[in-house]
């Protein structure tokens, strides 16, 4: 059931309607157009400018299916949703207040995401008969066909106006039309009273060598701004007040970049070389891309022949004394299963990143899902326990990637970090940390002067074995994938030894619990319902939590990032509430894991598998329903 547009967002649509300024707490804008229309850039610029004036934001790009569909078709529509607020916002927003549709296909594909009565800005020049047909409209009146009569629709002849604005430009027609997205951006800037300077500067810098392009973009931006003002279209006073944000220096970051940087930061804090062996796969490729850019820090990030080579080169690098890392998505994680078992038995530090996407098999490569959890926990032969973490927002990918590396290096174990397409591609403001404020990392090195080094001697506290880098005299040793004798590490088929080693490997992973924080409860610390989530559902749950508590419900929320081991106080957290509901974007993997651990507790579950994140609304509804039952 579609929510109504925020009643506070009252706008003057056309000249005949009354002009009115209104206060908004937060607003959701969705830019959409053909793949070639530059919607991702438009959205990014809007978000960053908003951040500069002090708003919080969360974005979510909605890429077209991976093949570039023919222009003008629904398959080729690219969307970018941004949620801005002067209070913290936690999600890109369920539905949008403003929808920009650069062509009929964009309208067709995105009208479902517009709140009732939303403002819809339409590039009327593209609404030709041919284009309407291409988009799958059956009539020539998409407004009627889509039942949009109650929406506030602005028909702007953006193509023509762009051409008009650039009539003196030296650029050819095609290049001129390429800046039409800036016209749309200009309209939005005016509507939400954003300054244009930052964007203008950016263009001047970026296109310093092609001033004609810089100029075209800038002129069109201004033309859009002026157009909106001229038609006196509408204007909201969107109050600029970064109230709850911590002071500091900020930047915008998406989850994949944050992940890459978190790993790099960990390597720096551990004084170790970072090696990443990966194979491109949507939506994880950007992690590799970001790491390849950091070569000036001595980071070696390599595209190799396949996923197996990705993890194997990383294991080799770890054996040689680097922090080995490999990044992938679900199908790639499956391919890495066998080799990850080698990391388990050789007890080498290794970080495996899985940016989850819709499955099974190739599934929905550009859509998000949380359905690799059980694969991460159990997808290896034999008893091969591994540490599993999950990041919850784009910016905390940085901290969990850092933490994954820290655990791997200090506990001598492979660690899987789960993120997903939603937070991997989504972005939000990130308070830039100082490196010196990050925790130190102490890789579990062997004493280089040890005259009796034994590769499987363990630290009595953590059960981590000691790491001896090739090149160090006197620590020569051999490891491998066969079961090994405790302490010496030589091959052993002794039955009792196998039992001991299985137990020690498990115990080592369990003891990681000593280095992780207790599970936090947000909202009520005890009460009727605990909403449980893990990973990327945090923003939606938190938004729902706020709503529910405003409604006076006694509700708490626990968002898990430490999956294996679970925090020490986990059971206690569950017991503080009458009911526990586990929310997941899969068919209930975390809840089945929890049930296997806490059989005597009752868990309710709410699942969604549509290749989409939750909406806060559906969460609120479900909690309310459970409240009544």
């Amino acid at each position, binding site marked *: 059931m579609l929510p109504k547009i925020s009643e506070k967002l009252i706008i003057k649509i056309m000249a005949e309607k009354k002009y009115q300024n209104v206060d908004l707490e937060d607003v959701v804008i969705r830019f959409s157009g053909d793949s070639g229309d530059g919607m991702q850039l438009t959205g990014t610029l809007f978000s960053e400018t908003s951040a500069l004036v002090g708003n919080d934001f969360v974005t979510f790009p909605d890429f077209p299916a991976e093949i570039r569909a023919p222009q003008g078709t629904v398959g080729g529509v690219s969307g970018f949703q941004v949620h801005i607020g002067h209070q913290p916002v936690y999600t890109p927003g369920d539905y949008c207040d403003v929808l920009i549709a650069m062509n009929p296909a964009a309208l067709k594909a995105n009208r479902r995401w517009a709140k009732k009565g939303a403002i819809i800005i339409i590039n009327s020049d593209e609404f030709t008969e041919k284009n309407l047909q291409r988009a799958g409209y059956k009539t020539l009146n998409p407004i009627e066909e889509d039942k949009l009569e109650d929406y506030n629709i602005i028909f702007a002849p953006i193509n023509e106006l762009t051409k008009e604005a650039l009539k003196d430009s030296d650029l050819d027609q095609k290049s001129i039309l390429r800046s039409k997205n800036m016209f749309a951006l200009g309209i939005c800037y005016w509507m939400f009273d954003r300054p244009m300077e930052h964007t203008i500067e950016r263009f001047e810098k970026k296109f310093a060598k092609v001033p004609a392009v810089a100029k075209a973009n800038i002129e069109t931006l201004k033309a859009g701004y002026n157009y909106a003002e001229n038609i006196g279209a509408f204007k909201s006073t969107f109050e600029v007040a970064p109230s709850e944000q911590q002071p500091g220096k*900020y930047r915008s970051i998406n989850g994949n970049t944050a992940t890459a*940087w978190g790993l790099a930061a960990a390597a720096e804090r551990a004084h170790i070389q970072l090696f990443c062996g990966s194979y491109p796969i949507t939506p994880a490729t950007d992690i590799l891309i970001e790491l390849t850019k950091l070569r000036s820090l001595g980071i070696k990030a390599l595209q190799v022949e396949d996923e197996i080579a990705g993890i194997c*080169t990383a294991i*080799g690098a770890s*054996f040689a004394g680097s922090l080995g890392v490999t990044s992938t998505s679900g199908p790639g994680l499956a391919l890495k299963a066998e080799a990850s078992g080698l990391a388990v038995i050789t007890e080498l530090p290794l970080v495996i990143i899985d940016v989850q996407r819709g499955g099974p098999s190739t599934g929905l490569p550009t859509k998000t899902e949380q359905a690799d959890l059980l694969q991460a926990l159990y997808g290896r032969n034999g008893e091969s326990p591994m540490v599993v973490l999950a990041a919850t927002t784009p910016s905390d990918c940085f901290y969990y990637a850092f933490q994954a590396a820290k655990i791997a290096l200090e506990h001598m174990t492979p660690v899987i970090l789960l993120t997903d397409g939603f937070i991997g591609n989504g972005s939000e403001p990130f308070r830039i*940390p100082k490196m010196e404020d990050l925790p130190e990392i102490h890789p579990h090195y062997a004493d280089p002067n040890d005259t009796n080094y034994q590769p499987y001697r363990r630290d009595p506290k953590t059960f981590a074995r000691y790491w001896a880098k*090739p090149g160090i*005299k006197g620590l020569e040793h*051999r*490891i491998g994938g066969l079961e090994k004798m405790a302490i010496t590490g030589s091959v052993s088929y002794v039955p009792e030894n196998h039992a001991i080693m299985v137990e020690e490997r498990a115990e080592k992973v369990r003891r990681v619990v000593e280095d992780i924080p207790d599970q936090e409860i947000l909202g009520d610390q005890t009460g009727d319902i605990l909403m449980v989530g893990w990973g990327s559902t945090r923003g939606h749950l938190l938004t729902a939590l706020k709503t529910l508590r405003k409604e006076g419900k006694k509700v708490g929320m626990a968002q898990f990032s430490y999956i294996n081991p679970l925090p020490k106080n986990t059971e206690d957290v569950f017991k503080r509430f009458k009911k526990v509901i586990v929310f997941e974007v899969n068919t209930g993997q975390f809840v089945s894991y929890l049930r296997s651990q806490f059989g005597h507790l009752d868990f309710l579950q709410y699942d969604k598998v549509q290749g989409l994140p939750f909406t806060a609304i559906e969460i609120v509804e479900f909690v309310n329903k459970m409240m009544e039952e």
Partner: protein
Amino acid sequence: MENKILHQPAEFKSNQEVRWCPGCGDHAVLNALHKAMSELGIPKEKFVVISGIGCSSRTPYYMNTYAFHTIHGRAAAISTGVKIANQDLTVFTVTGDGDALAIGGNHFIHFIRRNLNLNMVLLNNRIYGLTKGQYSPTSEEGKITKTSPYGTIEHPFNPGELVLGAQGKFFARSMDTNIKLQTEIMVEAAQFVGASVIEILQNCVIFNDGAYKNINDKETREDHQIILHHGEKMIFGKNRDKGLVLDGFKLKVVTIGQDGYTMDDILTHDAHCQEPFIHMMLINMAYPDYPTAFGIIRAVKGDSYGVKMDQQTAEIMAKSKIKCMDDVLNSGDTWEVK
């Protein structure tokens, strides 16, 4: 090149009991490896031996160096990671015909193409030893094994040919029994900058005994083997009177002094020639028409991935303003919240 010897071969032996069958060709290869390491004059701790899984791949346990017995087929990929992480190390990748060419085929061709400074010793016994006798990608067609009760119907790979197809720069071959030649080759391979593949024709006494009898029979082997040395004439035979000449697009075996052939007609081995065609012909020579070629067949200079990586990194480091993570974090657009 003369190297200062730091360790005797015996110092490279680990204390683990060697578990190959008595008579297995692997023993000799292990000996040769110990010798080569000694001759290379590199400190013990700078060596890393990486293997996959197979009888041959047990080698790491018998090395008193850093060593890693990994998983089936992945030795090449794991070695790649080791070497890129630390180019100071001298890495030997020990593998079998199944390990390298069946399950490990993809890493094998990319190992060669990438041309890191790595040294692969491929023990080709034309069978799966460890799993007790199934055919391998190098088993001769028609071979009856446990999984081919009616004989295989597959053409075998010729490892050297595949190396060349993947643009290999260094390929050498030895019989398992010829420890001297192996040692020589291993030393040169380690000193060669780039990926080297050393194929050892290895006898599995249990599951494929006599696979190389034709060419390695004591009585006749001098007539069936030609050991090539760069810059030397391609001659062989008990009496050293046979040689290879070029006959159109084929090699031809001639007897010096017969049919008017003199020593001058005999080809001189040029391992350094970039063009692969003669190397390919030498690699393809097969019993009974030709002697089997041994020694370093091809060793041509090429850019090594590792060297290029280091150069590139050095350049980037010198040029870039980004020196540490604080720089990265603060790069690009930022804003201040007060």
